């Protein structure tokens, strides 16, 4: 049986770890709530914009706009969104695994990577993938201009013809306990379902083409913003759950250790009493 001091020290260290995990859980919960609020605020804008674009797209000649251009696929761009920090359960592992699997199917020499989050960059850098851009250490002051900046870089890469398609892999926030990994095609844009559209007699100013031309970059920026928000909220939710589990596990450990401690303490008392009794016996 371990001696008393060792057990006491272990209980102490587990308890202090528990304090840390508990604090991290509360921080993650607060950040998650904030992120959820922002997602809800962004939704009306995204919704309206998508609606308008879907109205306009079928009437526009694809040739006019490089961003709508459907080309034969030779090279593919991948945007992988993960976090800067770990300790969030399987949040990073799962999204990176999924991304790597998809990329390996195409062949890693044919894929250009845009890494968002330190974990993504480190993961793919270590494995020698072809990284074009990485965006790291912005999550703490996440703001719309970040999304615009990323959007610009990605759009120009597509327009320059470096890649013929762009995919995004990210965590979608379903609820606190669930994040689902999504893989979507960002570019070239797809048409909406044409059958469900209603044609309304509307004024377009300037022309439809010019409208689409100015709307599509905005649409892509807002998509990027959505991916960032979803991923951020998921990250915080995953961390919250992971830290909650860690706190519970620490509690269990403390219980077990306390039991062991008490047993050891009793054993030592019994031993001492035996010694006293047998000492007294010997004096007789």
């Amino acid at each position, binding site marked *: 049986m371990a001696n008393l001091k060792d057990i006491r020290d272990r209980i102490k260290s587990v308890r202090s770890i528990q304090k840390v995990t508990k604090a991290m859980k509360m921080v993650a919960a607060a950040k998650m709530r904030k992120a959820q609020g*922002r997602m809800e*605020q*962004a939704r*009306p*804008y*995204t919704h*309206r*914009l998508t609606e*308008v674009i879907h109205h*306009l797209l079928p009437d526009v000649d694809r040739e006019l706009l490089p961003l709508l251009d459907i080309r034969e696929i030779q090279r593919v761009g991948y945007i992988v969104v993960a976090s800067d920090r770990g300790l969030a359960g399987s949040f990073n592992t799962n999204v990176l695994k999924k991304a790597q699997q998809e990329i390996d199917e195409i062949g890693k020499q044919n894929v250009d990577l845009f890494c968002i989050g330190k974990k993504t960059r480190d993961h793919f850098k270590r494995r020698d993938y072809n990284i074009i851009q990485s965006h790291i250490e912005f999550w703490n002051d996440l*703001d*719309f201009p970040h*999304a*615009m900046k990323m959007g610009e870089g990605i759009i120009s890469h597509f327009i320059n013809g470096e890649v013929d398609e762009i995919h995004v892999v990210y965590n979608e926030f379903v609820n606190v306990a669930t994040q689902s990994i999504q893989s979507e095609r960002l570019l070239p844009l797809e048409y909406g379902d044409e059958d469900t559209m209603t044609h*309304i*007699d*509307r*004024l*377009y*100013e*300037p022309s439809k083409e*010019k*409208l689409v031309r*100015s*709307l599509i970059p*905005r649409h892509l*920026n*807002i998509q990027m*913003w959505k991916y960032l928000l979803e991923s951020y909220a998921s990250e915080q939710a995953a961390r919250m759950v992971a830290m909650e589990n860690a706190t519970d596990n620490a509690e269990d450990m403390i219980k077990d250790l306390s039991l062991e401690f008490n047993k050891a303490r009793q054993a030592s008392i019994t031993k001492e009493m035996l010694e006293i009794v047998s000492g007294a016996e010997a004096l007789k």
Partner: protein
Amino acid sequence: MSTFNLDIVTPTRNLDEMVVSYVRCPGLDGSFGIMANHQEGIFSLDIGEIMIKTNSETKYYSTSGGFAEIANDGVCILVETVESASAIDISRAEAALQRARDRKSSSDKENLDQLRLASALSRALIRLRVAKK
């Protein structure tokens, strides 16, 4: 005067829905006004000021562009940023203006992104103009 509903929506926040009688927006080919019962349509907006008239007051906002959707049940303005006259940080706008002017007069003409410079300049100027109203 007859009124209509106006929504101003940005990616990061929604202004409260307003009941207004007149809106003036910065279109790509100059400002245009919207009153109740306007024909439906979609209009691109440039960097500029949005003026809103309700029956009791007139408000000014600065914006960095977007578009306006006019439907029969109201108007929705979707822009990337919007700031009301009272929310504009004048010293920040002045600093931005100064930066843009410095860049304009800098000797490094070749690496100058004219388009970006022009939009930075006009954004700062509009902010200051709206803030002083």
